[in-house]
């Protein structure tokens, strides 16, 4: 244990894993105000500023032995405080936070959430980052109710998820945007305030479209632009001025390299999957979603090697799961009779990320497909959920994982 004595306004950077216990005075950690006897954890991999609001001393229980670094000034820009003071006087229902990648959106969300907890019992936070997610698992939008101040949103767990199935909303725009509205409804049934932490995709056709979609879906009281200059202004041309708040990116924000993003994603998924077990689910009772398989009418095809065939809707043609190659003559005949012929070989499904959702599209966990028995219509999945077969829907994503949560590739949407 290490005791650190602060003068008023002193700021130290402390690295996790560590626990801070206030011995005397009052300190601020990411907007959480801690007094004598209060404790808070700094998670592994996080380095956070601790600011003395008065002359204070803390006991620091730190595993890595890294020396605390004393800073010459605050890391929290003054305009952050001005905004949270305004919010505390008139708590908003929905706050949408926008920022480029590596602009410190999650830190800012944590700061605002902790500050709002001074005037409210709980605050909902939605994490729209599908890759390096803090709330939920990779490939999902996560929603958490925060009731006590926290140093990191990945500490607070999650109430419910919405499954998107990709690290990026790019080719999954519709499920992504519907997730946001669905989870916002859920949040506002339980809390008065919702913070929406968004992805850093803010440029290009897709970035503009997804941000406009969020604004339209959420109708936020505040759209907060976390920007260095004016790089986000194009996103709020349609938003009334009195709803826009502009705050500064902290100059202490550090960029996360792509390789580290992957390892952070994998760490999250491995942690989630560490107690996963294999379950078999009857697909006659549980619907499949976001794939063609098991959504059409069974079709008898008089061809060798066919495990299952389905007549899909209209121009979609047919889906054939087969374990032998069809020659070009067979394919031509099928195309003449049925139009579009989609073929899948058994085993293609192995490793696909799936979500388990109720009939209101609220997801309670994810899993990794081991195999589908196309004749018996059952699916085997690895998941930590105890009864995945009780959910109404198995939603198929576009990512592949190993059963232990390592990333293992991609699936083109619409390929089965």
């Amino acid at each position, binding site marked *: 244990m290490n005791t650190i004595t602060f003068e008023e306004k002193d700021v130290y950077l402390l690295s996790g894993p560590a626990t801070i216990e206030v011995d005397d005075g009052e300190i601020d950690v990411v907007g959480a105000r801690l007094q004598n006897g209060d404790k808070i954890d700094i998670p592994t991999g996080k380095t956070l500023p601790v600011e003395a609001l008065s002359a204070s001393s803390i006991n620091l229980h730190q595993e890595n032995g890294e020396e605390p670094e004393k800073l010459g000034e605050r890391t929290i820009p003054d305009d952050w405080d001005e905004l949270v003071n305004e919010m505390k006087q008139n708590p908003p229902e929905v706050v949408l936070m926008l920022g480029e990648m590596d602009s410190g959106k999650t830190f800012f969300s944590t700061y605002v959430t902790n500050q709002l907890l001074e005037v409210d019992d709980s605050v909902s936070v939605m994490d729209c980052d599908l890759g390096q997610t803090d709330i939920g698992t990779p490939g999902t939008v996560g929603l958490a109710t925060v009731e006590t101040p926290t140093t990191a949103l990945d500490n607070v767990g999650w109430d419910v998820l919405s499954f998107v199935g990709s690290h990026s909303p790019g080719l999954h*725009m*519709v499920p992504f945007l519907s997730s946001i509205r669905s989870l916002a409804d859920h949040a506002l049934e339980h809390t008065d305030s919702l913070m929406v932490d968004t992805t850093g995709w803010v440029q290009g056709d*897709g970035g503009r479209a997804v941000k406009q979609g969020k604004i339209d879906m959420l109708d936020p009281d505040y759209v907060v632009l976390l920007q260095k200059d004016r790089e986000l202004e194009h996103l709020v041309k349609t938003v009334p001025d009195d709803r826009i708040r502009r705050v500064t990116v902290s100059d202490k924000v550090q960029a996360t390299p792509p390789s580290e993003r992957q390892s952070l994603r994998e760490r999250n998924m491995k942690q989630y999957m560490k107690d996963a077990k294999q379950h078999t689910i009857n697909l006659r009772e549980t619907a499949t979603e976001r794939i063609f398989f098991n959504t059409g009418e069974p079709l008898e095809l008089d061809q060798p090697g066919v495990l299952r065939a389905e007549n899909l809707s209209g121009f979609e043609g047919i889906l054939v799961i087969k374990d032998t190659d069809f020659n070009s003559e067979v394919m031509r005949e099928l195309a003449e009779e049925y139009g579009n012929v989609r073929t*899948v*070989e058994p085993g*293609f499904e192995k490793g696909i990320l799936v979500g388990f959702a109720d009939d209101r599209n609220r997801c309670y966990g994810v899993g990794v497909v081991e195999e589908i028995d196309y004749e018996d219509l059952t699916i085997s999945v690895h998941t930590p959920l105890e009864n995945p077969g009780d959910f109404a829907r198995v939603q198929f994503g576009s990512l592949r994982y190993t059963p232990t949560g390592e990333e*293992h*590739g991609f699936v*083109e*949407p619409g390929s089965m």
Partner: protein
Amino acid sequence: MTYQESDVVDIVDRVDGILDEDHSPELKLQLIQETINLYHKVPLYPGIAEMVSHNLLEETSFDELNLEEYVSISSNGEVHSGVINEIDNGEIHVKNIYSEDNKIVRISKSDIDQIRKINEEALADDWPELDFSEETTSQ
């Protein structure tokens, strides 16, 4: 979302660009095939596939060549594109896989002005975290 918003259009534009580039017809075909292969490797990120496709072609030297690599060789004012079939005694045999007779051209090391090859590792080089080099079995 619209087609334009998905970045898939980047792949179409890239194919269009390859057709306009100053390559032999065979090399254009191979570059288009490799670009499509890249897209299938990272179907969720067509913009990245497009970016990486610009790095598919790299200059190399005779001594660094391996069998089965796809090369484009400038020699005595002509360009020969194809798969390396044999490397022997300072001579390289290049098989044109897009001709009906799979014609093989023999080129001496001393006659070579420039060698470019398809970098099969372009995705791994540029975006290692997205390279899983996994074959899929849907059609």
